[in-house]
């Protein structure tokens, strides 16, 4: 009874999360939805008398793989999005139709299957769940287990081949970088100093708040352009204030604020 209730609750939760994973437009939301799906699976495994599998699911998938996935997302940049232009016209409609047909086929097929009561679980688990699993992995399935190592080596090697960049020249030192900055200053007048940090306001100290320069103007350089969602509203707000006090707004561009 408890198993059935758990199943139906988790079935709804995990299918909803899986749909959210597919349809969410933001990669981070998708990743979190994936986490929900994985956790639901872990609970289902536990309910199915597979405690080891449930633990592994949480530790390896939800713990390690998911976190790695989120790290990669953050490193690649939360703002990078894929093009969603449909190159084959009507493809989504037909794919949806085919998927629906497949689901109906499976549901109708499995609805008619008569399952006998499961037997033999107690006998298999006699020595305990983990020892029995260990015996299966290291005797009957030892070859598959060993061959999987080839898969892991290939994956590591492939990641190196596709992503590793050989450094063709020595890495620029701090001295070189500084020199280059001042050469650029001499030639184009670009600001050689470091960029202003994000600002601190009485009401906000968020990282997406732009800084105020000494003359009261707003520095757009002080925030990452992907995070700068407040800049526009602030500019409006500030310009209202400034109009009132009749102080000119200095349009700050790179290079000018060094004077």
């Amino acid at each position: 009874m408890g198993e059935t209730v758990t199943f139906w609750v988790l079935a709804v939760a995990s299918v909803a999360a899986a749909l959210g994973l597919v349809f969410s437009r933001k990669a981070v939301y998708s990743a979190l939805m994936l986490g929900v799906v994985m956790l639901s699976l872990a609970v289902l495994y536990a309910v199915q008398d597979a405690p080891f599998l449930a633990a592994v699911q949480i530790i390896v998938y939800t713990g390690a793989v998911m976190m790695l996935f989120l790290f990669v997302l953050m490193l690649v940049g939360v703002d990078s999005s894929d093009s969603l232009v449909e190159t084959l016209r009507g493809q989504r409609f037909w794919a949806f139709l085919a998927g629906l047909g497949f689901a109906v086929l499976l549901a109708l097929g499995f609805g008619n299957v008569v399952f006998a009561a499961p037997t033999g679980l107690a006998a298999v688990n006699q020595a305990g769940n983990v020892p029995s699993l260990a015996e299966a992995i290291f005797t009957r399935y030892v070859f598959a287990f060993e061959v999987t190592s080839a898969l892991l080596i290939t994956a590591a090697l492939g990641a190196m081949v596709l992503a590793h960049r050989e450094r063709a020249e020595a890495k620029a030192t701090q001295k070189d970088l500084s020199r280059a900055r001042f050469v650029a200053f001499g030639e184009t007048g670009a600001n050689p100093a470091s960029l202003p940090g994000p600002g601190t306001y009485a009401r906000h100290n968020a990282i997406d708040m732009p800084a105020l320069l000494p003359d009261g103007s707003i520095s757009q350089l002080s925030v990452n352009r992907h995070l700068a969602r407040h800049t526009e509203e602030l500019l409006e707000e500030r310009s209202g204030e400034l109009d009132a006090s009749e102080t000119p707004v200095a349009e700050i561009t790179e290079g000018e604020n060094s004077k």
Partner: protein
Amino acid sequence: MNTITAPAIEYLQLAPLLIVFGAGILGVLVEAFAPRYLRRAMHIPLTLLSLAGAFALVIVQTIKGVPTKPSAMGAVAVDGPTLFIWGTILVLAFISLLLLNDEDHFVPAASAVPGSAEEERALIEGNVHTEVYPLALFAIGGMLLFPASNDLLIMFVALEVMSLPLYLLCGLARRRRLLSQESAMKYFLLGAFSSAFFLYGTALLYGYAGSVDLAKISTALSANVGQDALLFTGAALLGVGLLFKIGAAPFQAWKPDVYQGAPTPVTALMASGTLVAAFGALLRVFWVAIGELDWDWSPIMWGVAILTMVVGAILAITQTDIKRMLAYSSIAHAGFLLVGVVAIGDAKQNATALAAILFYLAVYGIASIGAFAIVTMVRDAGGEAWHLSRWAGLGKRSPKLAGLFAFFLLAFAGIPLTSGFFGKYAVFQAAVAGGAVQLVVVGVVASAVAAFFYVRVIVLMFFNDPAPDGPTVVLPSWGTASVVGFAALATVVLGVFPQPVLDLAQSAAGSLFVR
């Protein structure tokens, strides 16, 4: 405290596999520790010797006697057909690697953006990705394991071990890099999708039979009743995964794109080795695990075979890219081979059909490597002369090369005095004996359509005037030259005197798959 008895592993029987995987791992160590200038010099002997050694061990095993029960605790079945398939794959892999060994097929720096200054720089400095050797060895190891796997679990692992390096290798072409990367991406996504189907099918069959062992699934067929939906759905999903790998008709879409985009030596390896391995696995699943169900699956297999032959033969006519044309030709050949898969019957009939398929796979693999080797030699300024119109008049400019290419095309078409004729003849004969006469009629018609586009290329090469700025034929390296020479020789010899190899295939198939 209970103890686990150590598993019994028949190391000698598995030695070919272990040598290839071991050499792959050694190759990775070479990548890690050897200085850059030495790597290639170390990889070449390591790779070629390991393949030759594995082939020698296959021969030793054949002479010692074919094992009658599965090895490695029932995971790997080293039986007659497996040994023949291993020998075939190892020969094909050896000559593909001679081709792959040539310089300037692979990108100098895979991480550099195509067309960037970084790429230019890597090209000038002469960087090479020597990782392709261990990657190819892992792929070959997977190819060896895939047709030998005796349970669905190890078959899935082998499928992935075979495919993953190939996905990577496809994306490493030196020229037309965007096309190459696109092909790798497509192959990867579609391959992952088909693997998911394979896994779902495995899970359903496990639910049906209570085991992933092929023999146990076979015995469960008569014992379980009332769960047919599980069995049929599982078998169908498993079939999707396997038919995808051989490129049969509703699942053929990846083949032209991937063959076109991949570096040509890798295409040669895929067109020969992967096809052989995937057919071995397909036969094992359909003949051993669900062989008793042939009344249920053979109508579907009929449909797939007809569709594959027709789609391959007809779409090949419209192609203008030489590699795409060869890809569609490969699809059509997969269809001809499926005709043999349908010809299942009693033990004697099975042995005949199996021998025919094994022979066909061997001769087709060799001829297709030869054809792709010639494709690598006809060059334009920007790499291989891929457009068919560039091949016009090649027969007048370099008659020897064009003659050899025409010869391989005739072998594909199945003209007498080439090996392809006996391959087709054997498969169609087995199918007629198995009662699939209508299928053979479709096969012969499809062969005639296929012959049309092969002959069209021959006419283009010999009876058209060469363009003034036509492609040049590069002087082949010793590797490419020996590949073309070996392939041509094998195609002639097997076309005139096929009996020894046919006998070998028959004796290999005589014992059928172990259960």
